[in-house]
């Protein structure tokens, strides 16, 4: 008996079908990667602790106060300021290059991987905002402060190692982070004459 040939399946429509699927996925999905400004919240306070106890004694020169009012205006260390000038002001505060009396104390300390360095160990940046502050304004301030830290770290990496901060290995990055610790504190929200 003659072997019957199995008829070949016509696969020419396969391409069309898969094209259809492809286009469906292209349309329904979004390539956008989520990006954001990463922050870390402080530990919650024990419930029996009073708010006043948290305000430990920090010397006046070690603290950098940024206040944002309900009109999104900035008051930095008692002076009005535009948000675009904040980065430079924050950098000068954190670095204290001229060893100014009014800027934070510099301490010498041994950091593994960097040796003996002088840095402002106890500085704190305090951000205070109003209930009615706009989110965009708040985020801009946070952004500028983070940018100040990032630029300082990068500058240091450049002068010390000749590489950008991103190119350094993890241990060195950690060491530089220790030298420029991000200390952005946010005041416990206060309710100014609210009706809660």
């Amino acid at each position, binding site marked *: 008996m003659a072997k019957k040939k199995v008829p070949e399946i016509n*696969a*020419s429509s*396969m*391409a069309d*079908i*898969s*094209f259809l*699927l*492809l286009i469906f*996925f*292209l349309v*329904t*999905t*979004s*390539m956008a*990667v*989520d*990006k*954001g*400004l*990463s*922050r*870390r*919240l*402080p*530990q*919650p306070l024990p419930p029996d602790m009073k708010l006043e106890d948290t305000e430990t004694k920090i010397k006046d020169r070690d603290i950098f106060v940024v206040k944002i009012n309900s009109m999104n205006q900035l008051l930095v260390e008692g002076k009005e300021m535009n948000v*675009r000038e904040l980065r430079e002001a924050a950098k000068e505060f954190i670095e204290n290059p001229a060893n100014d009396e009014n800027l934070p104390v510099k301490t010498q300390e041994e950091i593994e991987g960097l040796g003996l360095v002088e840095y402002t160990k106890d500085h704190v940046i305090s951000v205070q*905002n*109003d*209930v*009615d*502050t*706009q*989110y*965009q304004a*708040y*985020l*801009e301030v*946070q*952004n500028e402060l*983070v*940018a100040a830290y*990032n630029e300082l770290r990068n500058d240091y990496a450049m002068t010390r190692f000749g590489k950008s901060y991103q190119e350094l290995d993890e241990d060195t990055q950690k060491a530089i982070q220790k030298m420029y610790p991000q200390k952005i504190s*946010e005041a416990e*929200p206060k309710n100014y004459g609210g009706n809660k």
Partner: protein
Amino acid sequence: MAKIRKSEKKEMPALNTASLPDIIFMLLFFFMTVTSMKEVTYKVRFTPPEATELQKLEKKSLVRYIYIGTPTEEFRKVYGSETRIQLDDAFADVSQIEDFIVRERESMDEDEKNLMTVSIKADKDTRMGIIADLKQALRRAYALKISYAAVQRTSY
């Protein structure tokens, strides 16, 4: 003598398209793996604020989202135009956030629990009052890693 032969209507050989489906399937699988479906239907409308020092959110499975904005057109009638919080697919109150975080954390693997990141997707015109409340709730729930969702600023 060589003769230039006038081609006797030579037919163009049919293009072999047998590998076309494979190529398309490859593309399809590529897109299927790299893209993600929209995780929820938005009930609030928000335009993210702009910033420059942005970091990518690494593992999608570790991220939980909280949306803040004004209700979209269809929910205006019921919920008004006040700024509201959306958790998963429903409107929520600040008091529900702690429960939400605890519940979400329960469903995660043991070793990933403290790596959970909460991404706050808030409208840029939101007042800080609601965000301060939200942050206090997150602190109480020990969800300390947060990320303020924003888009890259292109110009000042």
